């Protein structure tokens, strides 16, 4: 039956129609032939019975009179009936009386030995026996044998007719079945063609044209078209979103990638690779060693290790390394990756390579700036006025020192001193001065000596004058340097509104290391105050001085805990006060008045103008600097008052 299912729909329908119509025709023919056969037999029996009756009537006399000749003549009349094969007469005691047969050769063979009433069909003939009755008495029996040619002839005829009808009907059915199924198959084939197109070309825009029908095929076609419409819209939405996704991936500022976790070969690289590194994505995909080739030789191991470790732990990772771009540029890359895991096995490595060269450069720049800031703070820390000036006056001071020492030395050795001894000698001989000078060998030398020493002394004096002139010039020079430094400091200052807290923190930051080194604990008691209008540099300088002095005071004191308390608060409506307090050695009462004077210092290596210049600066800023102490060992308190920003305007 397999062939049947493989037949096309049209052929299948044809076969079905033919089978149905032919088998109906066949059944009808068989029925008809059967009926005709039966009817013909019945007619034959009836005909033979009538003939037998006629023969019996005709034979009555012969039988009554036992006239054998007459009997045989009567029987011979059957010659006229072509279908009768034999005829026979029996006596009443069922003995053969006379016989006739169409084939004389077999005359006896065809006659029954004794008559059996009724009819019976034999293979090729029908036998019929009837009694001959006369006056109600059976006087003998008549038997006839007929052939069945009539029946077979009729059946054959009918079979021939039936066959003809079948042939004609079959041809008609075939003709019809070729035409009729198209009504059904054509739309289905149309649908099938549409489906084939969709399947082969993935073209969801085609539609079945079998529409406007209300039967099942119409419904099917409509449903099919609807489905196509849905698929088409979903497909276009899908491709749209895929395009969007793709353009998104390719436009992300970084190389999006995917790698196979086993071979580490790249399976996807976004087009930014071309822009960032100058390598097209294909060069990554085609060559599994490509990545190792372009990474900076010093960084290959580090970078490969990071990704392998992350893969082993199935963790996200981040690493930075250098890549040599196609134009030999060195590009800093940050690789961020994740491991995609399915069923506890890594199935893909995905991530992004970002160009961080600029950040790296910015970080370097930041570091440089930081260094500069550190340098600047250090310089600010060193910017004690005296130190700055010393740098500049160092050489001049040297000359001053040399000149002063020379003059002093030469004065000690001065020949003027010998004048005193010479005059002493004269005084001894004052009474006989003339004789002494004229006669005494020493006295004779004396006038010459006096002249020479006087000359020398004048020479010396001239030299000292020169030296002192130089000394004075050098001192002038130093004054100029100091003045320049001061004017520079004045010009550099910018008056701005500053937070007192920030100023204090700046000063503390510069001293932080030494405060920590000297075990000083800093206590901050800051109240909320308005901003102050100051020259930041000057205030910080004052505060640095105060903090540094406090540190010295604490260093020299024997206290268990070295405390430096800085208090910020308001003083009246227009001032802010910053109080720097320590529990150090304190200030004796007699010093409280002169600590601010120039050149006063208690430090062995101090120069004594820290507080002096601080007080001047505070005054310049429109504020004040005051000191308080209850005496030695009681600590000291310095109060810096500064004007509030808006109170000046």
């Amino acid at each position, binding site marked *: 039956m397999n062939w049947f299912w493989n037949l096309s729909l049209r052929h299948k329908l044809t076969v079905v129609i033919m089978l149905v119509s032919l088998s109906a025709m066949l059944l009808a023919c068989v029925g008809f032939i059967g009926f005709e056969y039966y009817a013909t037999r019945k007619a034959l029996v009836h005909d033979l019975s009538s003939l037998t009756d006629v023969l019996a009537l005709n034979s009555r006399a012969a039988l009554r009179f036992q006239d054998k000749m007459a009997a045989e003549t009567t029987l011979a009349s059957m010659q006229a009936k072509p279908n009768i094969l034999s005829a026979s007469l029996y006596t009443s005691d069922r003995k053969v009386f006379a016989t006739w047969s169409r084939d004389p050769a077999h005359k006896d063979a065809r006659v029954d030995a004794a008559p059996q009433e009724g009819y019976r069909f034999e293979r090729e003939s029908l036998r019929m026996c009837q009694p001959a009755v006369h006056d109600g008495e059976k006087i003998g029996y008549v038997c006839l044998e007929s052939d069945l040619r009539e029946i077979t002839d009729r059946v054959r005829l009918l079979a021939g007719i039936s066959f003809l009808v079948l042939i004609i009907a079959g041809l008609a059915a075939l003709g019809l079945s070729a035409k009729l199924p198209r009504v059904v198959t054509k739309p289905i084939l149309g649908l099938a063609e549409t489906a084939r197109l969709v399947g082969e070309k993935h073209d969801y825009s085609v539609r079945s044209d079998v529409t406007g029908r209300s039967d099942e095929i119409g419904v099917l076609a409509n449903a099919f078209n609807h489905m196509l419409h849905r698929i088409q819209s979903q497909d276009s939405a899908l491709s749209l979103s895929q395009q969007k996704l793709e353009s998104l991936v390719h436009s992300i500022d970084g190389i999006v990638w995917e790698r196979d976790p086993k071979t580490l070969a790249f399976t996807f690289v976004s087009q930014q690779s071309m822009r960032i590194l100058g390598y097209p994505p294909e060069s990554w995909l085609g060559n599994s060693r490509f990545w190792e080739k372009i990474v900076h030789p010093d960084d290959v191991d580090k970078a490969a290790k990071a990704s392998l470790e992350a893969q082993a732990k199935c963790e996200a990772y981040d690493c930075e390394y250098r890549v040599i771009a196609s134009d030999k540029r060195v590009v800093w890359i940050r690789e961020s990756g994740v491991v995609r895991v399915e069923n506890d096995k890594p199935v893909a490595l995905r991530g992004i390579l970002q160009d961080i060269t600029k950040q790296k450069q910015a970080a370097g720049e930041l570091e440089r700036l930081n260094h500069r800031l550190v340098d600047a703070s250090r310089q600010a820390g060193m910017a004690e006025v005296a130190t700055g000036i010393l*740098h500049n006056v160092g050489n001049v001071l040297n*000359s001053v*020192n040399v000149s002063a020492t*020379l003059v002093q030395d030469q004065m000690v050795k001065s020949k003027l001193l010998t004048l005193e001894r010479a005059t002493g*000698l004269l005084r001894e001989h004052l009474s006989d001065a003339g004789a002494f000078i004229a006669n005494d060998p020493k006295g004779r030398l004396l006038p010459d000596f006096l002249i*020479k020493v006087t000359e020398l002394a004048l020479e010396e004096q001239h030299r000292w004058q020169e030296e002192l002139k130089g000394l004075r010039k050098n001192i002038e020079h130093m004054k100029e340097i100091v003045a320049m430094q001061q004017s520079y400091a004045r010009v550099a200052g910018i008056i701005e509104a500053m937070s007192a807290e920030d100023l204090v923190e700046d000063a503390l930051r510069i001293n932080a290391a030494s405060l920590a080194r000297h075990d000083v604990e800093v206590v901050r008691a800051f109240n909320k105050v308005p901003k102050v209008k100051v020259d930041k540099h000057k205030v910080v300088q004052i505060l640095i001085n105060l903090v540094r002095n406090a540190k010295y005071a604490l260093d020299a004191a024997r206290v268990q805990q070295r405390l430096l308390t800085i208090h910020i608060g308001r003083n009246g409506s227009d001032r802010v006060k910053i109080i720097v307090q320590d529990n150090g050695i304190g200030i004796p009462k007699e010093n409280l008045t002169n600590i601010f004077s120039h050149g006063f210092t208690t430090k062995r290596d101090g120069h004594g103008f820290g507080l002096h210049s601080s007080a001047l600066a505070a005054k310049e800023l429109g504020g004040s600097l005051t000191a308080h102490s209850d005496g030695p060992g009681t600590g000291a308190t310095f109060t810096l008052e500064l004007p509030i920003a808006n109170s000046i305007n």
Partner: protein
Amino acid sequence: METNVNQTGHRLLIIDDNPTIHEDIKKILCPPKEDADVSAMAAELFGSRSPAVEPTQFRIDSAYQGQEGLAKVEQAIAEGAPYAMAFVDVRMPPGWDGIETIRRIWDKYPGLQVVICTAYSDHSWEDITRSLGYSDSFVILKKPFDNVEVLQLAHALTKKWTLACETRIRMDNLDEMVRVRAEALSKANE
């Protein structure tokens, strides 16, 4: 500058970009000569005084840049009268700094005794030893300096230089003697 130089004195070189330092050092090391007649007269008049120690004389040359200093040292060697010592400033813009200059001079003439003058701690001991190594041939002198410091250094270092020269000559003589003796011995053995 060469007027008051005694031809027998040691040769000194000052390498410094600041002329006042040259003046200062010269003032200290070359004081005005005492008038010999007056001294003799004073001794005769007042008796007792022992004559003052004749001050050591120095012949001082000036160079204002490192390169110039090196040229002077080379010239002095060529003349057969090398410098015994040099005062070298650390900061001498725009040319070599003092350390660089000393390194280059020692390449040519390692025997030179050096006083490194520095105004402030722009070069630490570490910086100096990193460039010059630990040596007994240099001393650091901080500005402003005392006259006595300069005098002491000049006398001590020139004395050291002289001793070193004598030692070297003596060693050379000994070597020569040993060589001659060895030759004589080997001849006697033949």
